């Protein structure tokens, strides 16, 4: 492909996404359906802007699924994964087993051989990780019980695909079709394909161990070194390198790359770079997934559908009904509440993208012929396209009957460790705020740009993450959407102002608590609309003044009142006095201007009525009144 035609292709895909997705979202259909419709629109049966290369694009874009599982892994700490072991093995295992058996049973009843029936069962059992996770995340239900169960099943399916690939050749009844171009999943293409069984097993275990050990001991120091360079794109490059490297390793030993990166994500979920990695990978993941959905849309074979509309429609309905029945039954067995069980069953009844791979693999291995796989591929694509619609039906028509509040976070928040407070900057100021909050049971998510400090603090058990807090996306991943208070304790006034503007633009609900340094930047923060500004040395300076007064013999409470009055006066004067003309939000740094500010300050001290104290305890006026009256007769 020449670079020109590549750019043209990119233009078509991006334009389709940019046009279709906002419309779909506006209509409440979700982005996945938007991408799918965009794909249909530009595909061979729409505007014919893309053609046969759709399949290649899909293979390329499947890497988005790999990235998605990395991000999912990052959000899933090992302890949580361990807690999910029962749903993964139990729910996931039974879903695959029962679906395979049910589909195979139907196929047998239709008179197919048991080998063909079993192959079809295995093709239809997995669901679409990409579509389901994206849709559930978009609806905000990924962390609900139904969402977690869906995730567990998808994870098991990803694992189950590997033995399926190994099992397929054993089902071959016809001689092998053309050997060779077996797609990215075929075993023959892996490095270990030619080895004996025990060596393959060893290689697989070694690769998994390598990912875990590297994630624990190698990746963090490496990322720290990269972070120390303080080049943002370098960190992005490192994050991509990590994901691609793991994907290559996994493919080399014949494991699912998605599974490998998921594992790496879990290992790194406890690391300080979690939010940074997440926000770096996220745009790539999103774009590739979008591309993948478009490719799925473009690959829907309308010619075939129009040739046998009843067969395809019946096939789609039968697949969805059967998978739905198995899922819903399992949700009852595993005691999900009815609404969560329905969410689970409505989320997973489609057939996943892996069916495309398995179908072509089955053709090559001579397990199935294209007369069987072609209608299946069409039905699979349609079932994927129907998923967002099924979820909408569930959300709009089914769930309201249960009075459930989908999309709201559940009370069980062990999974969702969102803090109400984000502290940006963990120097002496930020850390004192953080420690004070922590001592009182308030958890805070901390962002800091100094990788050495982050490392030290994490070794002491604090939830500290590396990253430049003035970045919108990092704030987002740190939970700024759900947090209530943002504490700005950065070392630089310029950065602080920048962050104020970012936060006020994207997260207007956040209350900002800002540390400032001197009069000019305090004033700039007020001018930027921050109402809680704390000059870093004002309290300690006033407290020193109090102690000086006490050492000189002043009464404790009198000095305390004097200090309070002075602080009040200070704040009032700051809010009142405007900066030099034209200076609204700018930061004054010139020495001469600082001296002018000091002069204004001292003039305000002299003229201020704020500093007159406590008339309530002063009986002067009362005494005068009493004395002006005649003494009462006794």
């Amino acid at each position, binding site marked *: 492909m020449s670079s020109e035609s590549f750019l043209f292709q990119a233009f078509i895909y991006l334009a389709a996404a940019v046009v279709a997705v906002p419309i779909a979202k506006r209509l409440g259909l979700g982005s996945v359906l938007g991408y799918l419709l965009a794909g249909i629109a530009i595909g061979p049966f729409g505007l014919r802007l893309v053609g046969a290369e759709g399949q290649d694009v899909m293979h390329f874009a499947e890497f988005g699924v790999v990235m998605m599982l990395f991000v999912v892994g990052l959000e899933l700490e090992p302890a949580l994964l361990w807690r999910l072991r029962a749903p993964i093995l139990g729910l996931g295992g039974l879903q695959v087993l029962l679906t395979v058996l049910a589909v195979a049973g139907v196929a047998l009843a239709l008179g197919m051989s048991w080998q063909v029936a079993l192959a079809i069962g295995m093709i239809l059992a997995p669901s679409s990780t990409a579509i389901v996770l994206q849709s559930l995340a978009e609806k905000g239900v990924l962390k609900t019980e139904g969402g977690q169960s869906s995730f567990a099943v998808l994870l098991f399916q990803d694992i189950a695909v590997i033995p399926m690939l190994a099992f397929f050749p054993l089902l071959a009844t016809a001689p092998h079709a053309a050997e060779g171009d077996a797609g990215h999943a075929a075993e023959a293409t892996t490095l270990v394909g030619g080895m004996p069984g025990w060596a393959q097993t060893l290689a697989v275990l070694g690769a998994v161990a390598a990912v875990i050990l590297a994630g624990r001991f190698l990746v963090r120091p490496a990322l720290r070194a990269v972070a120390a360079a303080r080049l943002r794109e370098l960190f992005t490059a490192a994050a991509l390198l990590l994901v691609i490297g793991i994907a290559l390793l996994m493919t080399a030993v014949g494991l699912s790359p998605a599974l490998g990166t998921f594992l790496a994500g879990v290992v790194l979920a406890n690391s300080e770079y979690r939010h940074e990695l997440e926000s770096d990978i996220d745009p790539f993941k999103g774009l590739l997934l979008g591309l993948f959905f478009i490719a799925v849309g473009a690959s829907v074979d309308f010619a075939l559908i129009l040739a046998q509309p009843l067969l395809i429609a019946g096939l789609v309905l039968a697949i969805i009904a059967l998978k739905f029945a198995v899922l819903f039954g399992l949700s009852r067995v595993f005691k999900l509440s009815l609404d969560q069980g329905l969410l689970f069953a409505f989320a997973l009844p489609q057939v996943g993208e892996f069916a495309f791979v398995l179908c072509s693999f089955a053709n090559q291995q001579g397990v199935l012929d294209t007369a069987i796989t072609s209608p299946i591929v069409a039905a699979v694509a349609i079932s994927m396209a129907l998923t967002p619609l099924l979820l909408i039906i569930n959300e709009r028509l089914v769930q309201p009957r249960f009075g459930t509040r989908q999309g709201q976070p559940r009370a069980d928040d062990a999974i969702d460790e969102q803090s109400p407070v984000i502290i940006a900057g963990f120097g002496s100021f930020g850390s004192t705020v953080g420690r004070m909050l922590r001592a009182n049971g308030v958890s805070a998510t901390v962002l800091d740009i100094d990788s050495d400090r982050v490392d030290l603090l994490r070794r002491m058990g604090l939830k500290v993450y590396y990253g430049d807090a003035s970045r919108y996306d990092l704030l987002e991943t740190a939970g700024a959407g759900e947090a209530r208070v943002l504490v700005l304790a950065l070392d630089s006034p310029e950065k602080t102002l920048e962050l104020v503007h970012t936060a006020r633009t994207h997260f207007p609900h956040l209350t900002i608590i800002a540390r400032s340094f001197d009069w000019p930047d305090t004033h700039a923060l007020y001018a930027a609309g921050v109402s809680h500004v704390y000059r870093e040395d004002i309290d300690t300076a006033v407290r020193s003044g109090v102690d000086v007064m006490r050492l000189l013999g002043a*009464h*404790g409470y*009198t*000095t305390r*009142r004097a200090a309070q009055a002075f602080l009040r006066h200070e704040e009032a004067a700051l809010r009142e006095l405007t900066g030099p003309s034209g200076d609204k939000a700018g930061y004054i740094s010139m020495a001469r201007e600082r001296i002018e500010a000091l002069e204004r300050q001292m003039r305000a001290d002299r003229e201020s009525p704020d500093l007159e104290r*406590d008339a309530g305890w*002063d009986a*002067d006026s009362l005494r005068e009144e009493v004395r002006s009256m005649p*003494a009462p007769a*006794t």
Partner: protein
Amino acid sequence: MLMTKMLILFAHPALDKSRIHRRLIRAVPELSGITVHDLYDTYPDFDIDVAREQELLLSHDLIILQHPFYWYSTPAIIKQWEDLVLEHGWAYGAQGTALRGKRLLSLISTGGPADAYRRDGYNRFTMRDLLAPIEQTAYLCGMEYLPPYLIQGTHRMDEAEIEREVGRYRQLLSLLHAGRIDLEAARGQASLNLALDKLIGQEVPE
């Protein structure tokens, strides 16, 4: 002879403006067994050290609450002190016996004259009426609440009168310290001032 250990819990929020109490508190006799404890000086943030306060109470027999009379009550910090220090299970309640048998004395200045604090005066209640909450507090803690010692009509006092009050205050503390005021006889009286006057009348002032 056994000296009475006395704790003066003193509360004046604006001592630099005080005409009476600043003079009084400086005139406290330097006797072993008299402790002056300035609450507003010690706890400018109202952050009262409960353990320390309880220890002080335990090591004294006569507790004197000395303060100006603000809005028919004590200055705010004494209320804070009561709320925090007089804990259930320590000062009151089935297990709260720490203060049993101690005595509590209010030593109060009022701007208005004595006859304003009568049923027919403009304050409409007597000082004993108005001090009922403190008296009941003492009762619940098993302490004997003595008749209050009152310095009244301070708004009209001139320098000479203030000087005289300071002298009487010194004598009161000395006599209490020496156990020479007949507290049994004073029980039920409107104020401790009468008992002091009687003693001073009998004796040559120091």
